[in-house]
């Protein structure tokens, strides 16, 4: 069965510092991979996704992620964090079933930004 591990429950970085959020997945075939962000009290917003092709994926808000098949990882990065990036971040792996694409989510990483 597919699974997603986000090993860091909480991360604190200073504004302007670089950020890397870790994500490891387990899936038998070529995965569809996603990063979502959730601001307090809000739904989830898609940051970026990987389906195929270039393993370095650019997303919104200056985020990027790199798919590394050999490490079963899809880590999220940002070169310079802004205070507004404080939120919870979820990695997910998608798999086709029936007529739809089911997502399995990680448990999330809470990002705190110190000013």
């Amino acid at each position, binding site marked *: 069965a597919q699974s997603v591990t986000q090993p860091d429950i909480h991360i604190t970085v200073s504004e302007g510092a670089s950020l890397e959020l870790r994500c490891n997945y387990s899936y038998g075939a070529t995965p569809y991979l996603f990063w979502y962000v959730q601001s307090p*009290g809000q739904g989830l917003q898609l940051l970026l*996704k990987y389906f195929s092709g270039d393993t370095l994926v650019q997303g919104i808000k200056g985020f990027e992620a790199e798919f590394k098949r050999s490490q079963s990882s899809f880590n999220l990065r940002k070169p310079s964090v802004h205070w507004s990036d404080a939120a919870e971040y979820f990695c997910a792996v998608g798999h086709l079933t029936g007529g739809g*694409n089911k997502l399995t989510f990680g448990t999330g990483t809470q990002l705190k930004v110190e000013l």
Partner: protein
Amino acid sequence: DVKVTQSSRYLVKRTGEKVFLECVQDMDHENMFWYRQDPGLGLRLIYFSYDVKMKEKGDIPEGYSVSREKKERFSLILESASTNQTSMYLCASTLGGETQYFGPGTRLLVL
């Protein structure tokens, strides 16, 4: 832009009550999903639907049912609410199997 709306942002119910959570999407999406979100557990899939009147169980369907009578609307039903169903409920929709678009969530408290 895709818009997914949920009928309530906050809901307080009593144990044993029947609870309806409604989700509406405006982009003619085929697939709709209900998740619950709990601290430290991430999002877990309750039910999903890939067509009108079609439904499939997700990972945690116990205590829940769903209804999809129209393409744009997907309802989650708690037949007899219990305190362990206190949670954040998120609805999502997708067209053909790619990106899921999420609603703002309903925070349900069962007393």
